[in-house]
């Protein structure tokens, strides 16, 4: 729904930059060794990768390192990308999240992460989000997360934003691990439907 609103806005005025180049096409050209296409792909996706990594890792310098690693991996493994199995953007963000989580697990002891949990401002954090598109997306994700049950929401946010394993989530929330797994699934399905992602 927000996409429609945004589309009508952009067609009238110049509130938003022109639509970003298609990441899938850029990735396919990257797979053929096209460095210019890769540079354009970086420009298109690096804010998502860096922003997400910063949110998960909570250390901008480390998030930069992870962003660099992710894009090197994208360059190296682009020939393996299969566009029929998902979008280029979700492929890159999946690689990025995996790396961000691995970095967090590597860098922080369990104790530090417990402290990080207490400090965490959660999805309501007030960082300035930079464009209309991102702000709308941010608001929509926030709204959809708030539509989950508390356990669903906490299980998903602790895992996604802080790199907890489901077993650690269970411990942190004093819940049964089997229940946590189920709530993650129920919550993700509800989130998927709320965000209008095709199942």
């Amino acid at each position, binding site marked *: 729904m927000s996409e429609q609103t945004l589309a009508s806005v952009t067609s009238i005025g110049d509130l938003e930059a022109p639509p970003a180049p298609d990441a899938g096409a850029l990735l396919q050209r990257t*797979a053929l*060794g096209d*460095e210019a296409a*890769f*540079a354009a792909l*970086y420009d298109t996706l*690096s*804010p*998502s*990768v*860096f*922003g*997400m990594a*910063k949110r998960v890792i909570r250390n901008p310098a480390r998030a*930069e390192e992870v*962003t*660099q690693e992710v894009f*090197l991996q994208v*360059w*190296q*493994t*682009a*020939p*393996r990308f*299969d566009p*029929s*199995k*998902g979008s280029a*953007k*979700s492929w890159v*963000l*999946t690689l*990025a*999240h995996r790396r961000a*989580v691995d970095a967090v697990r590597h860098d922080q002891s369990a104790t530090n992460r417990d402290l990080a949990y207490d400090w965490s401002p959660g999805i309501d954090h007030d*960082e300035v*989000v*930079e*464009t209309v598109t*991102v702000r709308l*997306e*941010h608001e929509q*994700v926030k709204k959809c997360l708030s539509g989950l049950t508390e356990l669903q929401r906490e299980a998903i946010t602790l*895992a*996604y934003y802080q*790199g*907890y*394993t*489901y077993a650690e989530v269970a411990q942190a929330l004093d819940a049964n691990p089997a229940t946590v*797994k*189920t709530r*993650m*699934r129920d919550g*993700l*399905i509800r*989130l*998927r439907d709320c965000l209008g*992602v*095709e*199942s």
Partner: protein
Amino acid sequence: MSNDLHGLLAPYALDALDADERATFEAHLDQCETCQAELPGLVETLSRVGEAESATPPPALRASVLAAVSTTTQQRPVVSLDSRRRLRRSLPQLVAAAAVVAAMVGGGFAVIEHDNVSDMRADQERVTAIISAADATTTSGNVSTGGTLRVISSKSHSAAVVSGSSLKELPGDKVYQLWTMHHGIPKDAGLLGTKDGMVYVPKLGDAVAVAVTVEPQGGSKEPTGEPVAVTDLAT
């Protein structure tokens, strides 16, 4: 058991599994069509969640990434161990295929790991297309440090599948790298791995032979030593 594994789908999508469970689930994922159908929607959902956190990285990072990329070799599509069953099923009619299967089954067949199932699928399809091509031809040669190099090429596809079997295992900082030979000039064709492996060569062009060298992990832009194997392509 299978139910238990299926329950790991959501934690897997969230990267909320430890390394062992992640490996276990990925093995299950290859077999589980329900999981394969459900995963993309969850992955796309979480990519929307990640995207909502967008923040512009420092400009210096762009220069650093582009500089690193200009000196980094790209990988070629490769085939995973997990695909061998399907491969075997689809190719029994061909002598060429039998050679490949023997190489894979006999050799332990270590390969560069895949990030997901769809990558493997795509590779399987490409490889199957070559091996099952009407004009598929097999050549093979010895590897000087031990083992055999087999090349199945198809003129109509201008592509080849190259496998190394019974290769001597290399130390972790070395890798077998494949080259296609064009009028005496070697061109990077991908990495075979640290022991047995397979590489799909999508464009043979005017190549007349393939060669294998031992290179530092990650591969080299040009060969840094004498080849351990050179095998002519079928003419």
